[in-house]
């Protein structure tokens, strides 16, 4: 089932001359894990904002083309309606947590939906357990590490049982340890709950392992779209300025001097195997 569909999507922020995204055509199936990469200012964040209605309902500007998420035309539905279908996690974990305890924060969305207390309790507990913050439920935001905060932010939207999870550079302010924990949670939600994931990331070495599909954007357009291995090892990805994992870089460096490995590696373990094959020969 197609869960996200964009046709000729173009958006220009009011006061800007050039569109932030231009002629975006995109179709995402339920259960996909889509990784979006691109240099800063390429339109990744703008695209994310179109997925839960922040564009056009929160940010003013001119929207052309169409975008449907879980069959709903984003233009015709408010952000608060879309919140039940699309969970949005932002870059800065600090500014997404408003309450004085993890539990209350996770409850926030459900309270807004007017759910009765008994139903709420169950969902909150489930969401906190799913991202591994159940033990932290009484902690205040300032008592949490960055990685923990970001996992709480995921729990906050998860509790509303969305079909799609959109994460806009969720690890950019985290240390590697925290980043790993966050991405691990996202992978788990995708694999175990078949949740559709749209992840914008700079840290490709960690994220690409989990993705089923990679999209590269540049200057507001989608320029590459396909299997992560093909996308990341393409010449364009490097010339656009994508921080491709070092093993992919090594693969390409070896290819340049005439040593072509049998497959494009995207993780250290894969590279180990590929090199072992070569060195045994």
């Amino acid at each position, binding site marked *: 089932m197609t869960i996200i569909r964009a046709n000729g999507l173009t958006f220009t922020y009011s006061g800007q001359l050039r569109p932030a995204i231009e002629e975006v055509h995109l179709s995402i199936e339920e259960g996909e894990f889509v990784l979006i990469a691109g240099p800063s200012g390429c339109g990744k964040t703008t695209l994310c904002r179109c997925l*839960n209605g*922040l564009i056009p*309902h*929160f940010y003013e500007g001119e929207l052309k083309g169409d975008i449907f998420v879980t069959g709903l035309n984003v233009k015709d539905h408010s*952000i*608060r*309606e879309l*919140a*039940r279908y699309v*969970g*949005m996690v*932002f870059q*800065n974990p*600090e*500014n*997404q*947590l*408003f*309450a*004085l*305890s993890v*539990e*209350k924060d996770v*409850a*926030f*969305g*459900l*309270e*807004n*939906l*007017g*759910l*009765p*207390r008994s139903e*709420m*309790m169950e969902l*909150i507990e489930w969401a906190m357990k799913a991202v591994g913050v159940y033990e932290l439920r009484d902690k*205040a*935001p*300032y008592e949490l590490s960055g990685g923990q905060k970001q996992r709480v932010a995921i729990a*906050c*939207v998860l509790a*509303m049982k969305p079909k799609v999870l959109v994460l806009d550079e969720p690890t950019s302010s985290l240390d590697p340890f925290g980043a790993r924990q966050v991405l691990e949670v996202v992978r788990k939600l995708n694999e175990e709950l078949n949740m559709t994931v749209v992840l914008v990331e700079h840290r490709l070495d960690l994220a690409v392992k989990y993705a089923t599909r990679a999209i590269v954007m540049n200057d507001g357009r989608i320029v590459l779209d396909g299997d992560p291995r093909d996308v990341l090892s393409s010449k364009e990805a490097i010339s656009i300025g994508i921080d491709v994992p070092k093993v992919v870089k090594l693969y390409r460096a070896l290819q340049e001097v005439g040593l072509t490995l049998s497959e494009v590696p995207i993780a250290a373990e894969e590279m180990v195997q590929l090199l072992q094959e070569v060195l045994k020969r």
Partner: protein
Amino acid sequence: MSFLDVLEGLRFKKASSPIHKLDPRVKFALALSLSTLALAFKELLALIALFTAHVPLILLGGVIRQWARMMKGASLFAFFIFLTNFLFIHFHPGYAALSPTFVLPISMALRFLTIVGAFSCFFLTTSPDDLGLALERHLVPFTKWLIERVPRLKGAIDPYGLCFAFIASVRFIPTMVEEATSIVDAQRARGLELDRGGLLKRIRGYVPILIPMVINALRRSDELAEAMESRAWGAVKERTSLYELRLKKGDAIVMALTALAFAIAVYVRISIPIPL
């Protein structure tokens, strides 16, 4: 002892004690009763009794250290109150006939300390979350009531929004303190000296600190609004709440005792003269 240290005497301390568990409204009633009585009496014996009455609450709440800090900060003001009263009586001999010279000034200082102590106890043992709940619980029906009478106010007051603003402002205090420290450090690392030069220069010195603070606060409020919207803020008219304040047995007992004590005190005030 800085101003911030004194504020520590108002900042909620997470703990589980019988006092912490009390309903915030009951605690508020307690603090209010004590303060009202402190204002009603000017006799030293009565004020000693009132001051002593709030000490067990501090002990039970396990907040003695914070409370002591607050008292230490407040004692300076208490001393001023003592001094002004003392001088006043000294220069108005007619007044002294009412009570011996030292007694009234001490009473007045004690009155001040009792009020500060009672509210310090309230804030130290009541989580902002509970305060928010109490606010929401009463503000929402109150707004409804108000709008029924003054229909023009419709849309002008958003009780949920007010409660949210209250909780969020408490929640962001540590974040903003951290941010301010970092901004001051960043500018000092660029040679900004805040404690040198004349008054004008010093005031100008705060510009490089205030501008980033304002800009970060504006950015934060934008991001918060975005995140709130994305989590269905305002989706239904009547928001529900994960926790509800409910008066428990203990609350009822404390409330009844407070009322009883208050009534007795009022009776004493009206009909029994206190010697000192």
